[in-house]
């Protein structure tokens, strides 16, 4: 395309002007120090303006790449964070387990403590508003947890493991109308069945206690140890009131020590002799009478 003569002429004049002025500026720069620095200062300002803008443009065009890098870094940091959280949790867990074991040992105060092994677990879910409450805790098959293990805290019993997953397990809470445990009370250690009746999460009832038992308010209720789920002598609660049922046995209202509303860690109790006990329990008595 041919440029119109007017534009062509103007461009030529412009370049001629620029050429002459450039020569003048070069002469000034080379012959005067003050002017040289002033002009160079101006040149530097123009340069820095273009440099900063070109950097901004460059950065803008690289935003996608930078964003990708940030996402990757974020992902790496999240993994790192999870690792350290897990590490701290394990450390805290180990310390807590030691503390709890020591407390349990003091509470139980007999040699049978050594028959059990304990695993600390964190409560993931804990229901309280149903008549069939349950807990989910963060230990499963990979931690050696199986069904029918007792779950306790130093303040009392929590429930029994009913189902296990790879990393979690389902615990039927003591606050479940289908759950009952064997317990004892008083100086004579009279046995009874401790059962939650669904009225309050801090109250249970010890039933089928012999009429002969002299129960006073404040007497402590312990686990009996008759089942393979829980060790004996774990304090569960204290007697609040008694009543006689059908003139045959006593029913004792028990205030539970365990506050189910504030459960964060629990201990899974494994009876090291359970298999032997269960195998012996499975033997049916041989009848000696002849028809």
């Amino acid at each position, binding site marked *: 395309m041919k440029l119109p003569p007017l534009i062509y002429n103007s461009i*030529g*004049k412009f370049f*001629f*002007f620029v050429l*002459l*002025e450039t*020569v*003048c*500026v*070069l*002469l*000034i720069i*080379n*012959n*005067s120090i*003050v*002017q040289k*620095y*002033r*002009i160079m200062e101006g040149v530097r300002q123009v340069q820095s303006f273009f440099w900063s803008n070109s950097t901004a443009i460059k950065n803008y065009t690289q935003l996608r790449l930078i964003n990708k890098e940030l996402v990757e870094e974020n992902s790496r940091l999240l993994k790192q964070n999870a690792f350290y959280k897990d590490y701290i949790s394990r450390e805290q867990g180990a310390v807590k387990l030691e503390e709890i074991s020591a407390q349990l040992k003091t509470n139980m105060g007999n040699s049978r403590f050594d028959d059990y092994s304990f695993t600390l677990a964190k409560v993931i879910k804990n229901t309280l508003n149903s008549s069939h409450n349950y807990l989910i805790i963060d230990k499963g098959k990979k931690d050696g947890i199986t069904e029918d293990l007792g779950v306790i805290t130093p303040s009392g019993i929590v429930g029994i493991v009913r189902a296990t997953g790879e990393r979690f397990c389902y615990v039927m809470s003591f606050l479940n109308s289908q759950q009952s445990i064997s317990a004892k009370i008083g100086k004579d250690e009279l046995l009874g069945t401790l059962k939650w009746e669904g009225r309050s999460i801090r109250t249970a009832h010890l039933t089928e206690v012999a009429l002969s038992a002299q129960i006073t308010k404040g007497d402590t209720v312990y686990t009996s140890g008759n089942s393979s789920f829980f060790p004996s002598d774990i304090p569960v609660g204290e007697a609040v009131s008694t009543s006689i049922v059908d003139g045959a046995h006593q029913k004792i209202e028990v205030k539970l020590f365990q506050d189910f509303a504030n459960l964060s860690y629990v201990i899974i109790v494994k009876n090291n002799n359970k298999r032997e006990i269960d195998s012996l329990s499975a033997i049916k008595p041989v009848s000696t009478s002849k028809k």
Partner: protein
Amino acid sequence: MSWVKYITGVVVILILQLLFSEFLNLWPMLYIVVIPLVIILLPADTSTYLLMAAGFGVGLLTDALADGILGLNAACGTLLGAVKPMIIRPMRKYNMQSEEFDINNGAFRQENLIILLVVSYLVFFVPYVLIDGSGASAFVYIVLRILINVAVNVVLAYLLLKLWIRRFF
């Protein structure tokens, strides 16, 4: 206009400029300069290339012969050469019918001459003072210096044109 006369006039202007530069140091703020007349006196239809070249050449010659910053007068002269057609164009459009519009023409109006001188010296002195006073950043000082130089030099150029140069050309 005879080119021989013009070149003679340019030589005279240059000699005057050198004399002023060397011996007429009235005030540090004041710079007596007559070389813009070399561009102003060129006919209105002179090519812009020639105007710029004339401004550059006369300016550089002044810089080289007088004790100043080499290239400063050349830069201002070149700028004046480039701008002169733009100063002349509105005057030519509204005040003159003849294509022979130039400062030597008897029909050239008095007010146009003054406007031409003022604008030309302003164009010359604005870059001159800015570059020459690079070390001084006071705005008032720069403006004052431009105004004083423009005023004094316009009066001097007007007198020179009226008394001698226009008759000579």
